[in-house]
């Protein structure tokens, strides 16, 4: 619980501070014909899409932080925790997701610079890498089950399946957005028109990659 607690406290204090900070100088009871100075302007580039993504990522972070807290607490509570062997395929999957993330970054850069080729190929490679990761995870599940590591037989197994499933579902949600981007691209949308969506998509991928690194690290060293 400490992990979630520290994380959420930091998040809330930062957020609360950011909210409250401008209020110290504010005198809301005074009416103004002209707003005084640029203090009330929002930072450049704070678009609805970006703010929405950040808020959503905060929710997802809370979800994973709490699950990881539960993982750690359950590990210590009773002596029945037997760590899983790490299937070699997971390294391959990690590579595939990394590739997907990098390719989407390439596509995003392409969209910014109006580079059709980079956007097209980046989107494609990004999707393929991600699909390879998702299918690879399914194969890992299959291998583990074949080797007798059932979900019910040990809490370590149960958490492994739960965490990978949660992570995979978030990626699948991302792939829906990816598919819509692909469709719009093939309907002939200009790279610049896709730029803001491409950006959100890419950032989401990077985020899920980081989450995967944390989960993988937990499996390797936990």
């Amino acid at each position, binding site marked *: 619980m400490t992990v979630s607690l520290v994380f959420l*406290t930091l998040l809330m204090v930062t957020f609360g501070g950011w909210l409250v900070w*401008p209020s110290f100088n*504010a005198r*809301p009871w005074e*009416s103004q014909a002209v*707003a005084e100075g640029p203090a009330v302007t929002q930072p450049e580039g704070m678009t609805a899409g970006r703010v*929405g993504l950040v808020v959503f990522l905060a929710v997802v972070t809370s979800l994973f932080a709490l699950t990881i807290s539960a993982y750690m607490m359950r590990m210590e*509570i009773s002596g029945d925790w037997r760590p899983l062997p790490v299937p070699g395929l997971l390294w391959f999957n990690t590579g595939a997701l990394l590739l997907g993330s990098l390719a989407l970054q390439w596509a995003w850069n392409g969209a910014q610079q109006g580079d059709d080729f980079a956007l097209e190929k980046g989107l494609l490679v990004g999707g393929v890498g991600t699909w390879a990761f998702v299918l690879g995870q399914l194969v890992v599940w299959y291998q583990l089950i074949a080797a007798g590591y059932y979900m019910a037989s040990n809490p370590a197994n149960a958490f492994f399946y739960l965490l990978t499933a949660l992570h995979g579902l978030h990626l699948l949600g991302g792939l829906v957005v990816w598919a819509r981007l692909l469709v719009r691209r093939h309907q002939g949308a200009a790279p610049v028109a896709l730029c803001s969506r491409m950006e959100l998509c890419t950032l989401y991928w990077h985020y899920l990659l980081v989450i995967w690194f944390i989960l993988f690290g937990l499996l390797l060293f936990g």
Partner: protein
Amino acid sequence: MGEREYDAGAYVPPAETEEMELVHPKTFIGKYIWSQDAKVIAIQYGVTATAIGLVALVLSLLMRLQLGFPNAFSLIDPGEYLQYVSMHGMIMVVYLLTAIFLGGFGNYLIPLMCGARDMVFPYLNMLSFWFYFASVLILVAGFFVPGGSMGAGWTLYPPQSISEGTPGSEAGIVVMLLSLAVFIAGFTMGGLNYVVTVLQARARGMTLMRLPLTIWGIFMATVMALLAFPALFVAALMMLCDRLLGTSFFMPEMLSMGETSDHGGGSPILFQHLFWFFGHPEVYIVALPAFGIVSDLLACHARKNIFGYRMMVWAIVIIGVLSFVVWAHHMYVSGMNPYFGFLFAITTLIIAVPTAIKVYNWILTLWRGNIRLTVPMLFAIGFIFTFVNGGLSGLFLGNVTVDVPLSDTYFVVGHFHMVMAVAPVLVIFGAIYHWYPKMTGRMLNDTLGKVHFWITFLGTYVIYYPMHFMGLEGVPRRYYAYGETTFISDSVQTLNVVISIAAFIVALAQVLFIINLVWSYYRGREAGPNPWRATTLEWQTEHTPPRHGNFGPTLPLVYRWPYDYSVPGSGDDFIPQNVAPQDTKKQAAEDRS
């Protein structure tokens, strides 16, 4: 006053809001069923939440019949009693209060009060409601599955909740957990909308520090809900795995009828941590919007600016942050380290400070105000009384040594019903009486409203006040019948009869309210655009009720905070937020001449 020459070009908006494209469907279905208009979604949320809330009210009446007159009616058996206790709690806390405050009032008031055309992501907003609606349907389906609905208490504690023999452990619990998961998914979509709309889509001049406190309350509650609901989501998923896939996240090894269970090593305490990590912020998720709405009702109906606006905002933010570090005060009797308990007792007492600041500020707002005892005002004042009384018993329960003997008695039932059931519900009623004229264009009937208020307000005291005494005597909660018990005196049964009769009278008063809602919709007095002479933007719309897009051709410009009531030197006793300073001077000059 920082007044200068008006120059629209030099005006700096808090957020550059581009005109949004609104979906304007032509068909009835597009307008009212699959609607993307936040106001319609709000009413959909409100009606659904009220409907499911009435189901929970009926459940509580069935329980009261059993408690007040045991063996007289035999409508329900002990198993059903437990199921009704559980479903009553779950429905009221999650499906009624959370949904109506954030989904209902949030959707209606955020775009209107911020001066936006609609929510930022209207399609997601529509999905949010339909997810909520689906979760309610799944919840209701729980009553009809084999074995009946979930019956392990609204806290769903394992191993009880998924062990054989507990009512509803066959299918009811599975349906409940699924329903919660769908609810949370739906809420996340809505919550994203509320937060982003408040941050991004405010009208020009509407700085954060000029937002009405209603919006501050709903905003902070949404942020908390977004961070807290994942805990319930994870807990629900893990419990589903325990129940359906045989894992042992929460389930310890158990011996039943001489046989050991398949589970082993799981920790019920882990569930309690996850549940209350959601459960305690949930209390404030319900309370903060209520705080905000009450502040606005008091200021408007006392014709006075809110006392200590900035302090109120800070208190809301501080309560939001602190409420994440008090959850374990629900677990003093779970066998945790007593020092851990003391830590949480301290944070619990600290959170009372910003809450008390809010109460003082409400009272100081009323002080020497031009108080009008309209129905919304009655409910707002009623809230202050009920909230303070309920909060004071919370100070007892927040201390480890006092809580241990009182835990799981009727003292707890009395406490949380006062502080987080009756108090927020009074605010909901007040808010409906206040904003109904904007939603429908007609006033609610005043006499019926006053009768409704007095029966509800006094009646709930008759119901919940005696429960504190019963708790002090040690009467345990969630019991179907008490039988021959030496420590419970006979007078407790007399109290139970009184409580049950009062409960029925209060429930009847709610029928009066529903009749008022329907009758006034057709026959109520025409309200006009601003019947309460309020300052906030929702009362300044071109049409009443506002049409899709809220504000005619141009969005309002905001020049002032929402509490300019009885400003000296101005002609009227209120100045709407979108009136420029030079216009008020002109008005005052005309009034003088």
